[in-house]
């Protein structure tokens, strides 16, 4: 850290074994930098290796395919990411998505125009999210795990009940368009992902609300003492997570031209995995939207590659699991290294 205000760090250095101390901190800083760039580096390496292994991998057709397949995970993972930033978890996103798709399909068959169908699906997602948030905060639940587990079950059951256990084919044409190629051979869903990412990015980076999310995730008790409306910040992230599930539902319904109670199976785990693999901290307060997106794409790339290489589907699960362990361990390592940096700075000062 050589740039500014060196007085703080240089005083007292002479008293310490200088050779060790002065080299150790840049070393640590480099390690920290590598760790925070880790997911991007790994993704680039992965792509490089895969383009060697499979000639088909790096074709435009396949890349566009990967993006289309990861669109749902990407959108929902961005919502999940906000929840995880506040030290929470949203297990209900998969069922929520299924319920939204069923409600959307039913409203379409009841004669609603496309715009209303979309509003119903997104609104349904947001409503389930609001229930999660309100019960978690005002029901004074110790952890969001429980309430989102409950809504996972309720939403799933409701979706099965409403759809009589079957997929409901037929969606408005403008929703189906999302599943087709739109411009430059890119699927329409990519533009939805980009739009959601842009809006959430602006909100999280430039609005007070975004700053509050990081504060609540960094230290909930301190956030309360600093006068941040913690309850409403928490409710808002669950609403947005549900909203993202609703948008994911629209994308998936477009790709399949149907609504189904079986949509979104294990999506909660995929999205949590994406956030963690992308490099956000499961402990809250750390990470940004890019992490969720990179994680989602990484999962998409791994699945796609293993398919291309004819590796069986059981093995894919193992690989994803191993990647999650690596990601979480590097988060732990990062925290440890930061602790070391702090200890050294304290050593230099006294």
């Amino acid at each position, binding site marked *: 850290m050589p740039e500014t205000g060196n007085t703080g760090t240089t005083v007292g250095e002479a008293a310490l074994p200088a050779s060790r101390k002065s080299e150790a901190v840049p070393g640590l800083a480099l390690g920290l930098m590598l760790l925070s760039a880790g997911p991007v580096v790994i993704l680039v390496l992965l792509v490089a290796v895969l383009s060697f292994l499979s000639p088909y991998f790096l074709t435009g057709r396949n890349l566009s395919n990967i993006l289309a397949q990861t669109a749902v995970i990407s959108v929902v993972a961005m919502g999940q990411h906000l929840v995880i930033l506040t030290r929470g978890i949203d297990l209900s996103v998969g069922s929520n998505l299924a319920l939204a798709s069923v409600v959307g399909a039913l409203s379409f068959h009841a004669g609603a125009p496309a715009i209303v169908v979309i509003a119903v699906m997104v609104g349904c997602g947001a409503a389930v999210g609001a229930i999660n948030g309100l019960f978690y905060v005002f029901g004074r639940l110790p952890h969001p795990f429980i309430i989102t587990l409950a809504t996972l079950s309720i939403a799933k059951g409701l979706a099965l009940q409403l759809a009589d256990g079957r997929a409901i084919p037929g969606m408005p044409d403008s929703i189906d368009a999302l599943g087709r190629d739109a411009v430059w051979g890119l699927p329409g869903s990519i533009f939805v992902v980009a739009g959601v990412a842009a809006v959430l990015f602006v909100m999280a980076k430039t609005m007070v609300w975004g700053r509050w999310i990081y504060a609540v995730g*960094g230290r909930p008790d301190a956030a309360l003492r600093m006068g941040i409306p913690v309850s*409403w910040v928490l409710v808002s992230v669950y609403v947005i997570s549900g909203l993202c599930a609703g948008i994911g539902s629209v994308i998936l319904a477009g790709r399949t031209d149907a609504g189904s109670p079986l949509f979104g199976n294990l999506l909660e785990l995929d999205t949590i995995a994406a956030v963690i693999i992308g490099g956000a901290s499961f402990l809250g307060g750390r990470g940004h939207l890019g992490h969720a997106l990179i994680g989602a794409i990484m999962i998409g790339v791994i699945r796609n590659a293993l398919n291309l290489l004819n590796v069986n589907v059981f093995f894919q699960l193992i690989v994803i699991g191993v990647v999650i362990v690596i990601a979480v361990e590097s988060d732990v390592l990062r925290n440890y290294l930061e602790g070391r940096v702090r200890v050294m700075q304290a050593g230099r000062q006294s």
Partner: protein
Amino acid sequence: MSAAAANVDHAVTADNPVLAVRGATKRFGSVLALDDVSIEVRRGEIVGLLGDNGAGKSTLTKCISGVHQLDAGAIFLDGAPTQIRSPADARFAGIETVYQDLALFDNLTPGQNFFAGRELAGPQWLPRGLRFLQQRRMDAETRALLVNLKVTLPRLDAVVAMMSGGQRQAIAVARSTVFARKVVILDEPTAALGLRESRQVLNLVAALRDQGNAVILITHNMEHVVELADRAVVLRQGRRVGELVPTKDNKQELVSMIVGA
């Protein structure tokens, strides 16, 4: 910063206590944590709040800063009875607290910590959470504040997690100076610090007083009490047992008041 405006505010009522607590009583279950405690603090004054562990110092200050509510008794700000129901109430009323655990956000930068919960943002017609951060203004004010307080930090764009104990303590105290308008409460601000870092924090405490704040300083360090405090109030087992003007010569007297021997 609002220092100029605040000084005018301070000048209006120089001699009346800006904060007065009367008959403060607080129970936690069967434990009587505070028993009819009264305390007054004036502008530009540092009052040392002393007592052994469990004497009620932290409970009293937490009642003033809105973390706990009094069971009986009243808090007066500038002579007016004031209900403080939450930490946000207290901050709004002009009471800043530097907590023993610092209440810093490790994942945020020093500047973001200074303005947490009171971000500079606009436009004003939007609800508070939906306003846009005025990051450059906050950065500039952060730099000015740190220069003003002679606090040096290795860098301003690094998160607080990366900083040393003394730097973190300085950040927490400096944060209270940003918005302090009436009262600043410091709970053991030098407890975990080395000599040099303690010195820096003590200078900050003096700066808070010089800005015209009423300062309540909780500490176990008699040297610091003698050096800084205009008066020392001693609590023991939830009761107020005495008050002294601390000098080099009556340190022993203070200690016996604290331990009750």
